[in-house]
């Protein structure tokens, strides 16, 4: 996705702004625009002023602005003209085995940058005498490929800086991580992401029902990209209707694939729990067939078991009226089921097994 951004920055085939995803359209242009992340921005500001950069490692959950920050920084450093010749960006969808590190990255890293000419848009850019290599989604690089980077990073450090962007810093091998200065990106605070999404909604003329923007932010859970995508998808649906109608909470639920509370409630009841009273002995007596029927119904309606399990967990575990031991047993059952689903188990069978275990745990308490 970010390559898309670098393309649109460089002169090339222009994209109709109407068809552009909003996440690209509203990507921050300068690092000052980046929402939250004050610490990182402050450090980078200093670096920008002194036009000297260390090797960098950005890590944090998705949608917190890692790629946006480095792209904005690169643009401020080099300007639109030099962007193409000075920045190499590789991400997970490019072939990135050890051969690419050896050939493509190495070739790019050892070219000496050309001297600076005046930028075409009349502004002056710092244009420091080095190039930037951005390795997006670096945690999906193989160990071998990362090892091959080690020496390259040092040998060409005079003329090349690396920026690694990843979700899990633990997947980056130590020797590479210790060569970089690390920046952690926190999930966005509600207030700053709200400001951003309200700005976009206003700029695009999106009409929503009350509370829908808050709902979007809640469902996105600090992931701004997700929030913006939800907003755009909902807008597509509702603007297409005749006459255009404001975005409703129901369609946001539908888009995000969140299972409605009634479905989760029916499952909770089948395992003998109500949201109000906790464990209810009357419901537990429903027996095996009740559970089987409830699970079958969920499968038939097409809900995805992973999502159901997650929400089932979120509904069950905080209930204060369930004693500690049944609750712990239920948590174990949910965890086992999640693992089984990750490993490709049959959705219906695994969910049924999980619910039976939970019911058994509840019968105990």
């Amino acid at each position, binding site marked *: *996705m970010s*390559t*898309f951004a670098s*393309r649109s920055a460089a002169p090339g085939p222009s*994209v*109709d702004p*109407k*068809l*552009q*995803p909003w996440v*690209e359209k509203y990507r921050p242009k300068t690092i000052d625009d980046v929402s939250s992340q004050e610490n990182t921005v402050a450090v980078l500001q200093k670096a920008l002023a002194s036009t000297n950069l260390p090797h960098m490692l950005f890590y944090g959950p*998705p949608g917190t602005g890692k790629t946006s920050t480095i792209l904005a920084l690169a643009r401020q450093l080099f300007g639109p003209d030099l962007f193409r010749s000075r920045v190499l960006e590789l*991400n*997970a*969808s*490019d072939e990135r085995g050890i051969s690419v590190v050896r050939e493509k990255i190495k070739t790019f890293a050892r070219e000496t940058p050309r001297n600076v000419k005046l930028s075409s848009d009349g502004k002056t850019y710092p244009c420091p005498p080095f190039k930037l290599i951005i390795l997006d*989604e670096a945690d*999906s690089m193989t160990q071998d490929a990362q090892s091959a980077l080690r020496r390259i990073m040092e040998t060409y450090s005079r003329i090349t800086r690396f920026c690694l962007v990843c979700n899990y810093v633990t997947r980056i091998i130590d020797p590479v991580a210790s060569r970089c200065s690390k920046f952690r990106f926190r999930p966005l605070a509600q207030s700053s992401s709200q400001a951003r999404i309200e700005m976009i909604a206003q700029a695009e003329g999106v009409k929503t029902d009350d509370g829908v923007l808050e709902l979007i932010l809640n469902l996105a859970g600090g992931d701004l*990209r*997700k929030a913006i*995508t939800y907003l755009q*998808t909902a807008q*597509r*649906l509702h*603007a*297409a*209707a005749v006459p255009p109608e404001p975005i409703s909470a129901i369609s946001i639920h*539908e*888009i*995000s*694939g969140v299972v409605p509370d009634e479905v989760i409630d029916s499952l909770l009841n089948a395992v003998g729990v109500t949201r109000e009273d906790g464990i209810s002995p009357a419901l537990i007596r429903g*027996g*095996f067939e009740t559970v*089987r029927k409830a699970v*079958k119904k969920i*499968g*038939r*309606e*097409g*809900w*995805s*078991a*992973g*999502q159901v399990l997650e929400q089932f967990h979120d509904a069950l575990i905080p209930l204060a009226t369930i004693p500690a031991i049944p609750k712990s047993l239920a948590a174990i059952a949910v965890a086992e089921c999640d693992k*089984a*689903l990750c*490993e*490709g*188990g*049959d*959705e*219906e*069978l*695994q969910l*049924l*097994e999980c619910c*039976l*275990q939970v*019911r*058994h745990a509840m019968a105990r308490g």
Partner: protein
Amino acid sequence: MSLWVDKYRPRSLDDLHYHEALSARLKSLAATGDFPHILFYGPSGAGKKTRIMCVLRELYGVGVEKLRIDQRVFVTPSNRKLDVNVVQSNYHIELTPSDVGNYDRVVIQDILKEIAQTQQVDLNAKQRFKVVIINEADALTRDAQAALRRTMEKYMTNMRLILCANSTSKIIAPIRSRCLLVRVAAPTDDEMSRVLHHVAKKERFSLPDTAAQSIISSSEGNLRKALLVFEAMKMQKPDLSGSIDVAKPDWETYIATVAAAIMKEQSAQRLLEVRGKIYELLSHCIPPGVVLKTLAERLVDLVDPEIKPQVIHWAAYYELRMRMGAKKIFHIEAFIAKFMMVQKNYLLQGVAQNMEMDMDF
């Protein structure tokens, strides 16, 4: 003459029999130029493919129904040749990359780049983009899904993706967040009976309600299955009157007899007999996962309510092991052996009047 399933498959969004709200949404989406990537998900036989074809027709007109089948050859980096069948029209291309197993990434990368980099040449086409349909998207490897990520945004002008999957659990989050998720639930019993009656009317006969009910209850929300069964029944008994049993697929009946055999006797001898039958099922290309699941369901119906949860527990346990292991038959057999043990223990305990069931698996 084609099967009823195909003959009476709705061709346009207006003809669809249920989920009217969804059809209206799809229709309005197709009418605007801004058509997103879509991920259709839902149980099999719910009508995902039918809806996809209807959307295409809404987008391009009848031209999409002129299909041709090509065999394409892809070469992996390790110089292996892969043959993939693709179905295409002038406006769309449909492929099932999971056919080639671990090499699906190559197919995705090659074919999407090819489609994405060529612009629509037909000036009369209604849309500037082509549509790529990817079947069984949940069976794609992670690598292949990661390769989709960038392509989906980069080539948005020339191409739209429609993914078709049974569940979203196995689709990675970045893909999910780039698509409009469309859930196609299985039809309710009422909706199914409406479709069955509609077909009966078109074929000019009337369908007795008892027959309709038995078809619906046997097909468990799978409309394709329901229509196939319906046609088979009509062939066997043209008047559809009286009590008729729904013709189940051979393998289901076969598994039911296996289950009955296991219930009758739990011994090593019987295990050996059953093994032959399981082998026979597998050699007729019934997927091992389906065999295990169906067998467990039949067994659960037969045993005492007290040990039902245990049966499910072991079925889930061995089903998972089967996915991770290499040799499927081992795990099916292990399940059967385990079941025999559970059942026998239960019976013995019943004899000894020792009703303290140890429910801690």
